[in-house]
């Protein structure tokens, strides 16, 4: 309602500004086009009022609550905070007509009070916003004159918009950091940080009864870190680095351009397949094969949820990434080095192995680091194929678990938000965020250094 009113006001203001400028143009030369005068009035009428309305909409529920609690029915509510809140939220739903009646008998009596308070404060907010809109429109319209620089005014508004848009990225980073830090600190108040960082036992199941076995809940993250590293940085890279590097070499150095123009997009499809598909494939098709293979080798502990199945499928997923990073760094090696080697009589493969790859090595290593950071943060494959047992083992046929798989596990149960279990997920998230951030920063630094070397 208020929004539509604001919008209409702004449109009327725009029309007034536009037509007034057009009349002015008949008599004298204008600095700005009439459309800019219109836009100027539109923005002044709309933006301040909108900002005010959105700020008010955050305070409004609190005002309504206060007003309702001041009524006789509100004062009769239990003093206990959580119970009062639940009654209030029920009454709010009844007032909106979302439900017929609540579990608490008091809520129905509160509904009329809430409805009237909401109406009152809604009207106040709308009236104030409209007043601001009128004031803004009047201010803009009063300024319109032949020599008035309406275009500069509109562009100032646009600049503000642009800056705000680019600030959102920074705010997101800040939001991630703050929310992770905040929840992690709450976790570390319940569970010592040193135990979290160096403990080697992970069993987050806090039992309901105190005398049950393992009731304490252990949050030692070492097994998770090892599992993450084992799957993402060892197994996946053993698969992805040779295949990705050799693919890049073949595609850039040997393949016929026509073949290359087909093979490269085909490889890139691998990167575009959703991870949940890889996860399903790993769990359904790869895992049984890996387990049977392990049993045939005589490894009795071979599990159907193995690190090898998850890691190898993840490695396949990473191939296009490594390949394109290697491609870039090989292409950055100066042609003169290649020509020099070939002129000395080296074959193509000798040139690649002894000149190109050593020269491109920093770039390739940077690419591998980026790939590791991506593999570490990968979630669905490990959730579906790697299992949940926190084992500290180097046996690729055994089940290990990772940070991401545990975050999903901890947060998808029915848990109240304040338990150590859910807060532990945020501590794991913080660790994951820091690790990937550091890996990325190192990788970008390596790649940049290497680029400078040849420029």
């Amino acid at each position, binding site marked *: 309602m208020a929004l539509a009113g604001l919008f209409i006001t702004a449109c009327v203001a725009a029309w007034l500004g536009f037509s007034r400028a057009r009349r002015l143009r008949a008599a004298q030369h204008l600095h700005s086009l009439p459309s800019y005068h219109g836009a100027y009035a539109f923005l002044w009428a709309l933006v301040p009022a909108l900002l005010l309305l959105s700020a008010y909409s955050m305070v409004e529920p609190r005002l309504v609550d206060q007003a309702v609690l001041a009524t006789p029915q509100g004062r009769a509510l239990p003093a206990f905070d959580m119970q009062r809140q639940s009654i209030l939220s029920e009454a709010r739903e009844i007032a909106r007509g979302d439900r017929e009646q609540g579990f608490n008998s008091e809520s129905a009596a509160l509904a009329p009070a809430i409805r009237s308070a909401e109406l009152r404060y809604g009207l106040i907010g709308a009236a104030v916003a409209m007043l601001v809109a009128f004031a803004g429109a009047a201010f803009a319209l009063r300024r319109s004159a032949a020599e008035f620089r309406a275009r500069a005014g509109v562009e100032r508004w646009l600049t503000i918009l*642009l800056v705000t848009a*680019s600030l959102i990225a920074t705010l997101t980073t800040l939001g*991630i950091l703050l*929310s992770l830090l905040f929840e992690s600190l709450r976790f570390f108040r319940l569970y010592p940080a040193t135990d979290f960082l160096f403990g080697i036992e992970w069993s987050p199941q806090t039992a309901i009864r105190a005398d049950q076995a393992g009731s304490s809940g252990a949050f030692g993250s070492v097994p998770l870190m090892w599992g993450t590293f084992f799957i993402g940085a060892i197994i996946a890279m053993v698969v992805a680095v040779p295949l990705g590097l050799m693919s890049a070499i*073949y595609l850039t150095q040997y393949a016929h351009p026509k073949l290359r123009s087909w093979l490269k997009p*085909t490889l890139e499809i691998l990167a*575009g397949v959703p991870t*949940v598909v890889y996860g399903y*494939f790993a769990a359904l098709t790869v895992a049984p094969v890996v387990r049977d293979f392990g049993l045939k080798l005589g490894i009795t502990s071979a599990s159907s949820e193995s690190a090898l199945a998850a890691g190898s499928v993840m490695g396949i997923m990473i191939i296009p990434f490594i390949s394109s990073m290697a491609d870039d760094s090989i292409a950055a090696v100066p042609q003169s080095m290649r020509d020099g080697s070939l002129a000395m009589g080296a074959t193509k493969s000798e040139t690649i192995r002894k000149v190109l790859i050593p020269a491109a090595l920093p770039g390739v290593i940077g690419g591998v680091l980026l790939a590791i950071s991506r593999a570490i943060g990968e979630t669905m494959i490990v959730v579906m194929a790697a299992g949940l047992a926190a084992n500290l083992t180097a046996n690729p046929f055994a089940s290990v678990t990772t940070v991401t798989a545990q975050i999903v596990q901890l947060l998808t149960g029915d848990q109240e938000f304040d338990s150590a279990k859910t807060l532990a997920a*945020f501590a794991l998230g913080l660790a994951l965020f820091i690790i990937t951030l550091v890996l990325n920063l190192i990788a970008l630094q390596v790649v940049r250094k290497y680029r400078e070397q040849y420029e």
Partner: protein
Amino acid sequence: MSSAAPLGAASRWTDEAMQRRVRRRYRSERTFRLVGLAAVGVSVLFLAFLLVTMASKGLGGFVRYEAALPIDFAKTDLFLDPATLRGPDADQLVASADLETAISQAATAAYGPSGATMFGDGAVTDLTRKIVDDPDMLTRPSSLWLPLSSDLDIAAKSDGAASDEKVVAMLRSRSALKMSINTQFLTASDSTDPSSVGVWGALKGSFLTILVTMFLAFPIGVLAAVYLEEFAPRNRWTDAIEVSINNLAAVPSIIFGLLGLAVFLNVMNLPRSAPLVGGMTLALMTMPVIVIAGRNAIKSVPPSIRDAALGVGASKMQVTFHHVLPLALPGILTGTIIGMARALGETAPLLMIGMRAFIAAPPGGITAPATVLPVQIFLWSDEVDRGFVEKTSAAIIVLLLFMLLMNGLAIYLRNRFERRW
């Protein structure tokens, strides 16, 4: 190189040792080349294997077996008056009637005791629709084709339990079995019975979520790219913005889920499981991708365009919005579509904000509880019922088709509109 000539000795091309060396070097050249080809081959073969596996497992999900069922409603316990079914709430009336018992009674009458469990939830849904369409059916005996239960469906398609195989063989011998397109799979929502599940609810959820993502991420991303590329002064603040955008692009997607959970759900109290929150979370994830693609596209517009526009008296803002941005738009759109395709396939952040609930009806709006296609695939993959294997793979086919469509669109846009300056 044990056979290398001693240092200083003249090496001649006609020497036997030299010839051997050259041959060996050429051999290793060929091997190297073959290893490279093999590496590419392994990746391509894996992709082919993945696609073929999904297709062979999933294509069955788009068809179903139906059996003929002679049914006379007068002989069953069903009580429904055709006259009342012409009113507006016919749907509810039929839904509240016990069709399941009626079907199993009719099937027992036709096929003996094994008929009692021959039809599943899918048959009930089908019959409900048939009765609503034609209430007069209730008054006369008729023969209907209804979908088999999930176990029998598997037995008819591949192999099932011995008892199920026997029932299928019996139906075949009476020629009371036929295969038909499973329209329910594309029009229904989640269900506990694999014979009546569908992807429509999840598809609609995905669609709404992506819509929210696009409405948020595209304008903000493009404006941020314009600012950073065209207006931003080089100082500490813009450097901070740039670094944070580049880092956001590499942050694991699950972290965005944690952010959504902590900020959108716990601080702002937005509804759980809603496409609105899912879209907002994915928008934060997609925005850096759009900003980076947008900056590259804007950067590739040659400065001569800007100079010409400035030369005829356009302001900086007019140059950007009237000339640079339209020319950069195809590149920006390509990047946006690729980012949207990635958001469409994303699962982990949506699990964090509770979009994994069992939801049996398509969402009514962006604040209604919903699930999305990748999450639906994840949920079905956890089901123990064998009928879900086929449905999961079929849902994956649908998801892959959408990804292919979006990426194809991006490639088309790039080839059709992108200019090389």
